Structures are given as structure tokens and as C-alpha cells.
């Protein structure tokens, strides 16, 4: 279980998370909506432990362990994995160097040729997202943080993204998905929807709240 208590985070001295309290239960899927710049990516990066996202105060607990001061590697080893929205190109390092378990390549439609390519180099939008999901699946995470896995992808890729989320469900992983696509949200059929704005959670609810908000999480 993930528990976040009064979390405040800054990047380069600028506050971007302003007191988030949030609890995610095992095996449940949470969709995170909100305007760009509202703090969605920052929240996921803070949970993953990326050092650029500096925790000023508050706590992150994962399965009753305080991970607030742990590094990204330690968190990954505890079962937290992230599909990055814009992963860096790592020249000379191949997907096969990172993915030790290629058994999920069919789930996300990744051909064998991907494994010998440099990480995130020369991939299309959809290919990048599928490569990210493959890496997350291969870690068999307890908590999967998926940052806009559906942005800039084609219809086929959306099918694979849904496959990946179903696979994570089978693993009983907790999933947090950031998206702007209401159609995808409906297909995922999440356990809960969380709307973030100005670095805070401004709304939570079931799928029924989609009747009242748009893809940015604003009232409509």
C-alpha cells in the first residue's frame, strides 16, 4: 500500500507539489487527471524518487516503510516501477541490457528487433511508450506509475497499453495512470479517479465523476 502524507516537493527551488495526501490500495487502478503543469508528472517522479524532485516536507510510505529518503534504485528494488512520459535516449545501452525478462513482448507488441536497439533511440511515439511498458512489466512491480502512456500514440498502441494495464492487474499491482484521454479512462475502468491541480489533489471519485468533468479534470 502507498501512503502519501502532506507532501511538498520543489524542482530547482520552485514548489510544484503543495501538500498532497493520498492513499493507494493494493491491486487497485487509479487514473490521474489534471491540467498540464498541475503536478501529475511531479507526483509520480516524487514517488519514484527521481532526485531532481526534491521533497521539502511530508512522507511517502510504501508497504509501511518510510521511503521518503530512499534513492531511486532502492525504491525500484522494493517494487516501484515507472513508465516515463519522455524517457531519455541512452546511446549504446540496449533494451536487452535492461529487460532481463522479454516474456511480455507480445503483451505490448514489441518485436524482437527492439531488443538490440539503443534505449529510446529512433523510436516512434508509440514504440517508446510500448518499450516503457515492457520495462515496467518485466520488473513485475507492486506499484506501477504510468505517465501518459497514451500520449502521441496510434490506435494500435492504445490496445497494447490496455493490455499492459490488464497484465499489471493480474499481477495484483497497484497502478497509477496519468492520462488526458477520457476514452482510455473509460476503457481502463479504474477503481478511482484523482484530479490534480496547482500541486494538490482537488477531486477524487469513481468513474461516475467523468460525467461532470472534462479531460483536464475541470468542471464541464
Amino acid at each position: 500500500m502507498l501512503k502519501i502524507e502532506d507532501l511538498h516537493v520543489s524542482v530547482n527551488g520552485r514548489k510544484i507539489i503543495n501538500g498532497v495526501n493520498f492513499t493507494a490500495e493494493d491491486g487497485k487502478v487509479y487514473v490521474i487527471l489534471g491540467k498540464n503543469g498541475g503536478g501529475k508528472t511531479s507526483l509520480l517522479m516524487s514517488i519514484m524518487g527521481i532526485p531532481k524532485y526534491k521533497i521539502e516536507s511530508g512522507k511517502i510510505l510504501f508497504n509501511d516503510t518510510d521511503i521518503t529518503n530512499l534513492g531511486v534504485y532502492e525504491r525500484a528494488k522494493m517494487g516501484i516501477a515507472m513508465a516515463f512520459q519522455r524517457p531519455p535516449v541512452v546511446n549504446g545501452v540496449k533494451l536487452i541490457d535492461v529487460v532481463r525478462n522479454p516474456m511480455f513482448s507480445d503483451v505490448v507488441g514489441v518485436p524482437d528487433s527492439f531488443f538490440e536497439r539503443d534505449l529510446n533511440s529512433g523510436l516512434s511515439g508509440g514504440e517508446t511508450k510500448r518499450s516503457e511498458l515492457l520495462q515496467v512489466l518485466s520488473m513485475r512491480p507492486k506499484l506501477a506509475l504510468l505517465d501518459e502512456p497514451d500520449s502521441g500514440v496510434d490506435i494500435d498502441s492504445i490496445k497494447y497499453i490496455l493490455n499492459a494495464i490488464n497484465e499489471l492487474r493480474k499481477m495484483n499491482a497497484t497502478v497509477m495512470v496519468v492520462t488526458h484521454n477520457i476514452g482510455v479512462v473509460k476503457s481502463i475502468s479504474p477503481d478511482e479517479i484523482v484530479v490534480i491541480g496547482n500541486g494538490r489533489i482537488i477531486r477524487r471519485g469513481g468513474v461516475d465523476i467523468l460525467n461532470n468533468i472534462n479531460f483536464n479534470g475541470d468542471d464541464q
Partner: protein
Amino acid sequence: MKFDRKYLESLLSVNPIGNDIDFSTFEMPSGTNDLPAGAEDDMKKVGIDLSENNRSATFIQNNEASLYKNINKVFNGKLERMPLQEAMKKYNIDRYYFNAVEMKDKFTAFSELNNPGGYFLRVFAGENVEIPIQACFLISTNNSIQNVHNIIIIEEGASAQIINGCTAQYKAKRTLHIGVTEIYLEKGSKFIYNMIHNWSSESYVRPRTGVVLADDAKFVSNYVTLYPIKDIQTFPTVRCDGANSSATLRSIVYGRAKSMLDLGGRIILNGAGSRGEIISHNVVADESNNITRSEIISNAPKTKGHIECRALMASDNAKMKTIPVLESSNKDAELTHEASIGKIDEEQLNYLMSRGISEDDAVALMVRGFLDVDEMELTPYLKKSVKELIDKTMEGF
């Protein structure tokens, strides 16, 4: 002797680039006629395979003695190879002797004054030698000089590749290798020159290499050095004299311990439409001092040249200096260069660590990736060997 002795002796004080070396602190022992103990393992580290199955011809020089010069039977009639001194008796090779390499400093003069060892290699016109030729320069005696002069001729339309492995045995801690290598590519020929160095941390190395290309000839040099070395200085010069000839000089350099690595190369584009490319990747660790000098000079129309020098700094106590020079006397020459010196990228490092890879392993993966051999035009076997060498080097990074 092609040169006047007094002239050669006057050059013995000329040291234009790099640290000076006092010859009198070394000896010149003759080698033995047998391979010294442990030599096979030492040679494997520089890509030399004595099983012969994977090689077309072999030449080994131990100190000053030439002791192995087999030619795989399949390649009889495609090439010839012999000690240089033997070739000088058999043929008149004046026009190949100190032509590609200029006689201009104390190392070339010393070599000429002291009956160098080394080989003569000729690949016959039109022959395609697919399996690599190999040569190993081994130093097995401490405090010794190895003096080598090689001449390679790739005749018209022929193609070949060579693996030169240079190594000093454990007991030969302090050594000096002087290597003059002159390579001539005739019309339409192709030659890949692979050089793997594994000297000792007290080795001084002064290669003096020159290459001359005729029309449509193609030359590729792949240079790999991964182990600590005391002091190497080399600046091979490639003359693309022929129209539409091309030269590529690639190097993978891993500066470790207190190495002084003054490397680089010069390509002179004299032929119309000729092209040159110099690419070097340096990892600079420990207290290593790396200098990369790259120079492309265009003297002919429609020539193209590109220099790329990338360095990854892995230590605060190391130094990296890159000196790219582009020179043109032609209005439609196209010459470019890019150079960068940087550290391990934090974003990439955290990304790999988020995949459950420890910091040490992630750094090693990135360094290995930076020393990428996939771009080198190597045979699959040699590529595998070099990758294994890099993996070995990374242990305990």
C-alpha cells in the same frame, strides 16, 4: 641506407610533440626463437588468435625477433608476408620506404639507425582476403626497446583486414615501442586496419604511421586502447591522394590510472572528391591525461571531412583536451567538426536505476555504451573479442 647517417643522428634530439624519452635508459635485447611462457594468453587480450582457423596469416615479433610467420594455406597465392629485412633483400622497395611516413623526428631516426624488425605485407591485385591477417608485437624483457618498421601494400582492387595486437608481458614492466608503419592502398583497394593496445602501465609507445591512398581506395582504421599505459603519442597521417578515395579513423580510448594518451590523426584530402572522417570516443578516468588531436586538410575540390570527438569524464583528477583542426584551400570543400566533453548524464543514470539497476552497474552500462564498437567496421569475431575486452575492463569499474 636511404638517409645520410649524420642527418639521422642530428634528428635524434628532435621531439616535436609529447614528452621526451631518453633512449639511453633502455636496452635492445634480441628476442628468443620460442614464444615466452604466458605469451598466448597475453596475445589473446589484444585479439591475437594462434589457432589460425580465424586468421589468414600471422606474424609475431618478440622483442626484436620475428618468430612466427604462417600463412593459412587457403590464402597462398592471395598475399605474401615476410620480415621487412627479408623483403628489402628480395625486392627494391625504395618507393615505399619512408614515403608515407616522414623521416622527421628522433623516433623515426632511431628506428632507421637500428635495423628495425617488422613485417612486409602485400595483398595481390584483385584478391579479397576475407579472414583477417594478424600481427602481434610482444615485449617480454624489462627495460627494453622494440623497434619495428612495417610496410603494407594493398594492390589494385584487393581488399583485406589486419588485426595488430601490441602487448607487453607482466615481467616487461618498463618498455619502449617504436613502430613505423607505412600503408599503401592502390587503386580501388580496401583495407581495414585494427589496432588493439595492451601495454603496461610503464610502457612508452611511439607509433609513426602513414597511409597513402590512390583513386577510389578506402581505408578504415579502428584503434582500441583500454588498459593503463605510461605514455603514448601518435599522430598517424593519411594522404587521400587519389580521386574519390576515403579514410575513416575511429578510436575507442579508455584512459585509466596515470596514463598519458596523446592520440589523434590527420587526413589530407589531396584527391578530388576524397573524404575523411575522424571519430574518437574517450572515457577519461582516474588520473589519466588524454589529448585528442584531429586534423583534416582539404587541398582539392568537392572534398568532405568530419571530425567527431566525444569524451566522458569519469574522474575529477583526470584531464581531457581535444584539438580539432580543419583547414581548406578550396572553396567547395565541406569540413565540419563536433566535440564534447561531459560527465555521466544524471537523467540517464536515474532512468537506468529506476529499472532496478544499481548505480555502479548503471555507470558501467553507460561507459560500455559510450565505448560502442558497433559503429566500427569489424568482423563479427573481432567485434565479439573487443566487446569481451571492454566487459573485462569494466569489472570493478
